[in-house]
């Protein structure tokens, strides 16, 4: 028996890096006393070869599977992680950590600035997808994992996956990028700017220092979420779900939530402010807007992937995703081909929009089942 056989199947906590290990940031700044909240499923095997890193999307967290400790709901990717699922904890050590800049335990704008003893607020340095990945690489290294079997993520998680391949190609065997892009488009940036302006227009935002005042810009953040939520769906999905159905009998002839779709969006906005920090929303959306993997390579994405020739990629997109449309994934795949990397690509038929990567999509499950089985066979 190896020692890992006695380790718990589910684990988690906060990894604290000492003052000798600051997080170097792309902006040139640094973060002292970095803390990364993490959760894991399954056991790391003796040679550390079965580790899979899951990268989460904008408003998600490290609780990818199992039960969320606050909401009590199942993890956000239990479709993929669990017994008999494509990533079975019986076979894999599955690790997920909250991104730097987040608000679920990792260092972010809500954390206490050691220099002032007060929450950072907007004095928190601007972070990038590259910074998030650098922090993950520190965590993975600290845990004694030399080479990840796979790095997997959807949406912003997919951006981290691509960044991993570009920054640390020798530290991952395979990469799964779902419903994502190698850069933020003008439309992506535009929607994020609407969200940020909504937050900052809320008088309770207080220039980012709302924590000291004991308030929260809930209205602004809710509106940001409502606008963003529309971009995660599709016209077809909204029509199928709500059509022009009314909340009550007849119209109110006012501005109440007459239509079910209005009520739904208000609910989404209201529920979001209970679980997410407004400043984190500003910082993480900014990180996504700044993301352009090809930029340091003269705009040639294949050059970013050239060191990742030995990484086995799987890229998936959804037909009705207009936030990160298939054309973005195809651009990634063509660049991978040009770089000589092994890549699989599938556009999955779905009317669920961008959120399809989190939802019931049996074709995605089947594709990833096969992909991870082949990765496991190659270990």
């Amino acid at each position: 028996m190896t020692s890992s056989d006695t380790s718990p199947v589910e684990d988690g906590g906060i990894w604290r890096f000492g003052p000798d290990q600051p997080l170097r940031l792309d902006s040139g700044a640094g973060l002292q006393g970095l803390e990364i909240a993490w959760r894991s499923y399954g056991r790391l095997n003796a040679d550390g070869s079965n580790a899979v890193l899951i990268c989460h999307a904008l408003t998600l967290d490290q609780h990818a599977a199992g039960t969320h400790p606050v909401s009590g709901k199942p993890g956000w990717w239990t479709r993929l992680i669990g017994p008999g699922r494509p990533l079975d904890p019986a076979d894999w050590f599955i690790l997920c950590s909250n991104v730097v800049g987040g608000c679920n335990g990792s260092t972010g704008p809500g954390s206490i600035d050691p220099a002032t003893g007060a929450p950072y607020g907007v004095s928190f340095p601007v972070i990038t997808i590259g910074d998030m990945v650098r922090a993950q690489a520190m965590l993975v290294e600290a845990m004694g994992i030399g080479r990840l079997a796979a790095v997997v993520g959807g949406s912003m998680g997919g951006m981290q996956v691509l960044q991993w391949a570009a920054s640390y190609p020798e530290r991952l065997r395979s990469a799964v990028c779902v419903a994502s892009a190698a850069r933020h488009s003008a439309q992506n940036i535009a929607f994020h700017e609407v969200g940020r302006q909504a937050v900052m227009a809320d008088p309770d935002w207080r220039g980012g220092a709302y924590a000291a005042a004991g308030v929260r810009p809930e209205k602004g953040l809710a509106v940001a979420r409502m606008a963003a939520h529309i971009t995660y769906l599709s016209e077809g999905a909204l029509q199928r779900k709500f059509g022009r159905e009314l909340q009550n009998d007849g119209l109110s002839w006012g501005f109440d939530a007459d239509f079910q779709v209005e009520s739904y969006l208000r609910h989404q906005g209201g529920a979001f402010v209970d679980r997410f920090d407004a400043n984190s929303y500003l910082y993480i959306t900014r990180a996504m807007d700044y993301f352009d993997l090809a930029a340091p390579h003269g705009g040639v994405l294949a050059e970013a992937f050239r060191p990742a020739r030995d990484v086995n990629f799987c890229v998936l997109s959804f037909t009705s995703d207009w936030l990160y449309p298939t054309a973005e994934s195809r651009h990634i795949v063509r660049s991978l081909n040009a770089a000589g990397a092994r890549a699989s690509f599938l556009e999955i038929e779905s009317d669920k929009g961008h959120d399809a990567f989190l939802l019931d999509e049996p074709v995605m499950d089947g594709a990833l089942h096969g992909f991870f089985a082949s990765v496991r066979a190659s270990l």
Partner: protein
Amino acid sequence: MREDFREILRLVRPGARVLDVGCGEGDLLEMLIRDKGADGRGLELEALKVSDCLARGLSVIQGDADRDLDYFPSRAFDYAVLSQTLQATRNPRHVLNELLRIADRAIVSFPNFGHWRVRWSLLTRGRMPETRALPEPWWSTPNIHLCSLADFAALTEDLDLRVEHCAALVRGRPARTIEPGRGWENWRAENALFLLSRRSQSPTAEPATGSGAAPQTSAPGDLFGA
């Protein structure tokens, strides 16, 4: 097993890098990987077939021979296989050119429109031929660029390609090595299969894989003695 698959398996050298263009559900790819130790990858247009391939653990890209070959680097593969697909591409000449840019050798098979059944069908019925090799009516067939053996041979001349091997395939019978220039073969071959390389570019030397035995003379039925 499909006769053209059997012939392709015979032609491909063990351990080769192979791109199967129009790989379907991945049957040939799986055999190439399992039986020939190939580094096999696929390109397939239909999403359902790609998802089947991925579920089987194969590396397959959903894409289009007409457009997506352009993005592969030159000589990335030892072989590019185009099995019963050329006639369904929009620009077969471009596709053939691209196959022999990204791979040292191309293996191309297609239904021969010069086959006697096709000629007989058109002659007697006066309508677009429907044969066992080409069963679909004109309005639903994916085959938009059909050609005869003689047409294809002319294209290989035009593109300055070397025909390293040519076989006639008739359903249910073993592949028969033929001389593509012979007129009667254009009547007899229901399907044709070509192994092509570029005259202007010397293909990589024949491999001395594994045992190091002279491959050409070893076991019958396999050019490389696998």
